[in-house]
């Protein structure tokens, strides 16, 4: 296991950052945050065709580039920095991962190439009204009909569920938790309602099913371990995204502290501000350690270590991003409290991603359980 990034990974970072500097500017973020659809298909296509971001970690046999999680982590840190408005987390961290983990080779061969090429926007529909991310939260009913499986019930807080071409749906059958695929273009009984979100840079939807035909992935009743593993991967990738967001927020705070003067000198020369910024960097570097440990665990493939590192990363990085984003507003003073300033975009992304895969308290409990505490 290599605990540092390679030259190639540094180059990947440069390429991705340069792309996002051009195509995910603050103006783009604001435009797409205000757009009900919330993403720009033109940018999505270029992400796929110019640098192959959607298929980066998809194995080559399924049309991807076959890179590892550390490489994918580099991309998520950069999309986090840019507050990219795109269904990237939903498609890559949740849906592609769920397909890779499920016990269904035919589905993988059929569905992953579309994700890798950028043609398919996909997501995972797991949470319901109570917002639980555990096994018990899955109640949506699936039953075997005469001509196949039918889903009836409701999923909510589904990331980018309003625009996904492919929904991977966790449901309950008499045998237990199962995973289903629903192609939204031709799904009877499917209703999707966009939810107005606090963080406008990442949209969510409510999805209802009324005898909607669905394709069972793998063996009926056995999907939970694969889903739990998918959530662990997503927890690590979200943590890296959070680190990127926190680092970008600190950058704006530091830039402002260098030029904003009070009492005839830059506020960054006062210890009250300087020490706050220093503490923010300590928080970010500690969060980096937590998130990177998760990436390295994923690449090493040690399941026990992955479970521990993923829960630790979410427990720590969620709070770190929120704290840094809130302190960024504090450093900016009054201007940081305005709609025009980007500081609130980071705060809202931070506060929303803090609960996106379960709260820090939930992840602490997962960690405690995994450590036997």
């Amino acid at each position, binding site marked *: *296991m*290599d*605990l*540092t990034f390679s030259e190639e990974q540094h180059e990947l970072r440069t390429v991705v950052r340069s792309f996002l500097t051009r195509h995910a500017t603050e103006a783009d973020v604001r435009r797409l945050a205000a757009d009900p659809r919330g993403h720009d298909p033109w940018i999505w296509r270029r992400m796929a065709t110019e640098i192959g971001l959607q298929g980066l970690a998809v194995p080559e046999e399924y049309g991807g580039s076959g890179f590892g999680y550390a490489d994918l982590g580099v991309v998520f840190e950069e999309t986090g920095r840019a507050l990219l408005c795109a269904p990237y987390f939903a498609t890559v961290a949740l849906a592609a991962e769920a397909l890779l983990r499920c016990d269904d080779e035919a589905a993988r061969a059929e569905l992953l190439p579309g994700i890798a090429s950028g043609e398919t926007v996909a997501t995972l529909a797991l949470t319901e009204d109570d917002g639980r991310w555990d096994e018990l939260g899955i109640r949506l009913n699936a039953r075997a009909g005469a001509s196949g499986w039918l889903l009836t019930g409701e999923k909510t807080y589904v990331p980018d569920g309003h625009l996904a071409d492919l929904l991977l749906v966790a449901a309950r059958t008499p045998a237990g938790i199962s995973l289903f695929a629903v192609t939204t273009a031709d799904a009877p009984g499917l209703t999707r309602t966009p939810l107005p979100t606090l963080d406008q840079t990442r949209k969510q939807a409510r999805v209802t099913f009324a005898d909607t035909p669905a394709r069972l992935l793998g063996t009926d009743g056995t999907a939970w371990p694969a889903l739990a593993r998918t959530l662990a991967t997503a927890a690590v990738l979200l943590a890296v995204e959070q680190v990127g967001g926190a680092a970008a927020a*600190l950058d704006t705070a*530091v830039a402002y*502290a*260098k030029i904003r003067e009070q009492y005839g*000198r*830059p506020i*960054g*020369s*006062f*210890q009250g*501000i*300087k*020490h706050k*910024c*220093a*503490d923010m*960097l*300590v928080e970010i*570097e*500690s969060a*980096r*350690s*937590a998130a*990177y*440990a998760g990436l*390295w*665990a994923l690449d090493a493939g040690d399941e026990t*270590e992955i479970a521990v590192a993923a829960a*630790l990363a979410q*427990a*720590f990085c969620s709070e770190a991003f929120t704290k840094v984003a809130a302190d960024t507003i504090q450093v900016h003073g009054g201007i940081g409290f305005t709609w025009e300033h980007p500081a609130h975009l980071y705060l809202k992304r931070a506060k929303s991603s803090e609960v996106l895969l379960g709260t820090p*308290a939930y992840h*602490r409990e997962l*960690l*405690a359980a995994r*450590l036997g*505490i």
Partner: protein
Amino acid sequence: MEVDFGPAVRDFRDELRDWFADHLVGEFAEHRGVGGPTDGAAWDVRLAWDRELSAGNWLGVGWPKEYGGRGLGLIEEIAFEYEYARANAPYRATVNALDLLGPMLLAMGDEAQKKRFLPPILAVEELWGQGFSEPGAGSDLASVRTRAERDGDQWVVNGQKVWTSFGVHADWLYVLTRTDPDSRRHKGLTLLLLPTDQPGVEIRPIRNLAGQDEFAEVFLSDARTGADMAVGEVGQGWRTAMATLGIERGTTLLPQQLGFEREAEALIDLARARGALDDPMLRRRIVDAWISVRIMRTTNLRTIAELTAGRTPGPQATTAKLYASTRHQQLGHLAMELAGPAGQIVGEDYELDTRQRSFLLSLAETIYGGSSEIQRNIIGELLLGLPREPRP
């Protein structure tokens, strides 16, 4: 999580592991993990352990062979520290000479000084104390007032030094002195090597809050040392001193922080035994303590991986100290809380148990080696590029 140092280092590691298996036994094994930067516990055992290490040729792994070292590289030095921490060997009593003075002499000393002083350091024949701080110069070392004047082929030194760790044991001191009486701030300083065995040197132990005498104040009254005992150029002592303080300490943080990890595990065992894990508030703090030590470890491993890849370590190498010292104190508070009423009781002659000693001594960690406030200035100014605070 483990570090793979590659095949070249594997033999070195295996040799070291075997050596620990054979030598970290008896009294040494009973004193596993004992000591720390301000902790004089079991001094005699630890000194004997340093001599055992010396006999095994394990001190100065990266120092040139001509001065008694092994002549190996940075990667072996790091592998040594890593294995040392894994073995939980007693904290080295002569760490000051090994980690600070030695590297400084190697970088800035003249040939005669290297030949004269480096071999006895590695042989644990001469013990050293650092004379940088003064009552009026702690974080602000440019305020040093101890004077040194030339008298023929000698320097005559007058002044007072303080917070000299293990000063009562020191045979020699390396002291920062003002050699140009008209100079101000960091100009006109010189770093001198000074023997303690003379009438002009009086060393008085200072009792720390844990009841130990392991640092000292040093009074210099017409103390003498040779003209050839200046390290680096006369008048350039600031540069020399800063080089000492700037010597990479990431490797020395590692053993200390792996020790914190052991404390966290002991704390979880204690909490389990006390049924404290059922208390949601305590449970949260316990999980956070575990998270903290795990993050410390990963941060160190990131730095080590960068160093062994031949890269300049990233910002985490600088932020690690502030994070670790703060979090270790929280760990200490939590351990004392879990100990409950029993934590109030000490042994005869104020003898402390491991938990009490670790908690009390952790209060020094945010002060020595650059206080947390100084660390925040360094992070703010050097890493983030914020403007300096106004200084006179």
